[in-house]
């Protein structure tokens, strides 16, 4: 059955963010179990690839990430239909992605980045394209688009490192997000030492902002 509720998203409060990057690190950790990333930093054999980005200006710092737009422009421009709406989140099918960058250009938030693809902790090489590296022709590494998926498919992972995330609340057992405020939250929000990140459930958020607006009158 179609879901009536708008997509949830994670948003940061700039006033609370201290710029520690714990959210970026947590995001990377929970999304790379297949790349051998366990609990210890020492298990990491690839660059940290986050799906949210702590930005800094002269006056504030805060993480920016996907808003899971209802009419997602990234999905609209993807020539290979790799970007889909799935269980309350806009997600990228990384196997399908051709690295064309159209989504990154279409996104009004800069929430999509292109990085090398990894499998089992090693760069994922392409079968056909080659490039000059260190004076010889070598198979080119795949490059794909990465963005926040609201920790969409993390619940089923049973290794030691994921236990806490599920416990701290990423997603429920069915793999779908529950309401914000008390329910499970994505990894970035669960590790933030300043509680600067919140999972916003829009119906909840709208009524809260209407109330706040009313009080200001």
């Amino acid at each position, binding site marked *: 059955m179609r879901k009536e509720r708008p997509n949830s998203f994670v948003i940061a409060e700039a006033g609370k963010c201290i710029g520690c*990057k714990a959210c970026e690190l947590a995001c990377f950790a929970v999304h790379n179990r297949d790349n051998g990333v366990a*609990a*210890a930093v020492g298990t990491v054999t690839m660059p940290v690839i986050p799906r949210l980005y702590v930005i800094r200006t002269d006056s504030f710092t805060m993480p920016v990430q996907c808003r899971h737009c209802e009419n997602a422009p990234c999905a609209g421009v993807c020539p290979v239909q790799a970007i889909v709406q799935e269980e309350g989140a806009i997600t990228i099918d990384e196997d399908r992605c051709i690295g064309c960058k159209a989504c990154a250009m279409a996104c009004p938030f800069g929430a999509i980045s292109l990085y090398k693809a990894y499998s089992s902790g090693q760069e994922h090489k392409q079968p056909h394209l080659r490039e000059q590296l260190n004076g010889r022709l070598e198979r080119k590494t795949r490059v794909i688009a990465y963005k926040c998926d609201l920790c969409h498919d993390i619940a089923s992972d049973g290794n030691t490192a994921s236990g806490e995330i599920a416990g701290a609340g990423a997603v429920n057992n069915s793999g779908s997000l529950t309401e914000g405020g008390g329910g499970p939250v994505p990894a970035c929000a669960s590790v933030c030492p300043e509680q600067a990140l919140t999972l916003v459930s829009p119906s909840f958020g709208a009524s809260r902002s209407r109330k706040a607006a009313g009080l200001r009158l």
Partner: protein
Amino acid sequence: MTPNIDPIIHIDEELCTGCRRCAEVCPVDAIIGEASTPQSIDAHRCVVCGQCVQTCAAYAAENDPSLTSRAEKLRQRGQLSSVREPLFAAYSTGHAIELKEALADPKRYKVVQCAPVIRVSLAEEFGLPFGTLTPGKMAAALRLLNFDRVYDTNFGADVTIMEEGSELISRVMSGERLPMFTSCCPAWVKHAETAAPHVLDHLSSCKSPMQMVGSLVKTYSAELDGIAPADILSVAVMPCTCKKFEAGREEMNVDGLREVDMVITTRELAQLIKDKGIDFINLPDETFDSPLGKYSGAGTIFGATGGVMEAAIRTGYELVTHEPIPNLQLDFIRGDEGIRTATVQIGDLELKVAMVAGLKYVSTILEQVAKGTCPYHFIEVMACPEGCVSGGGQPKLLLETQRKSAYQARKSSIYRHDSNQKVRKSHENPAIIKLYKDFLGEPLGHASHHLLHTKFFSRSVKGEMK
């Protein structure tokens, strides 16, 4: 012999975002700087515990053109060029490059010792669950790294109990210099010397288990193996960044030779194992070498907060009463961060003890000692939150939310290792009995004083300390 002048703990200005989470965990307020600007470390005040290293999440982003190259950063940090993990702003000086070179030198006799908690955390660096116990694989890996002898700091922990337990009993009997503080945690010792020189007389004169093993490696075991002490390279694998500082202290030498030539952390050992391409997870178990590799359960539990106290009571009880202790497992002494106190009935003596886990909690006790109102006989102080299981050189976690369960699992693993040992009291360890019979004579005797005890010096600088 040069004193160690490297401050060991550093904050990389290029990477620090000024979030000051390191300042929050620093127990001695040694991290200085405004929020949102790179922080620096007051080396005088810093106790080198490495908690900032454990907490820092500000990493070097891939391909950031404004940063010094990764290869250069690794070189500056003393880390092997094969290290692939992300680099963070807060880090400790590495010694793996130096050790790798030394291990390839056929002229040196390479001896290593490992702290009690390396075996409960090393496997995490290879993706195994928290607290996986791997003493056998660790011994095998160290041999593959080219060490000639694989010894154990746990043995030194047993020696420490013999010396420190005897010292405690003698002080309690004479009523002198009480309370007595443990002296195995180098970060606590540095803090006492820097911020509370008035308690230095109250510290046990024992060297730490690491230094005791180092001292015995260049005397007792050198003699047994027929090796010239000067040809020995004495290496320690520690959960602690401050052990690097301790090994470099001027007084830590035996007859002019350094007791411990080099200290690497748990993380650095894992990096060396990976660098050599050793398949750690599938290594068949091997045992430690004798005699400095034989240990009791009491030596094992040194790595958890309350462990030194529990080990000391197991032996102290029997030294005083000449009767077996009714219950070996002193659960009332075990616990978490903070101060815990207990009263233990030993014959006619009501021994009052306190365990401090986390250096920030020690100040009230230091004030009591200054006022002469401190009610305890014996106080264990561990600078890190839950003792060595949470040391600054231990595997660093990607997720702050897992810290508690990691420490919990490492601790249970230590206690499980103890309860599975046949010998659980230091004074019943046959290798310890033999050491005293053949070499040391008796605890606190002449040889012990020469090799196993030390003095502490005030590092207080007038006008600098508030």
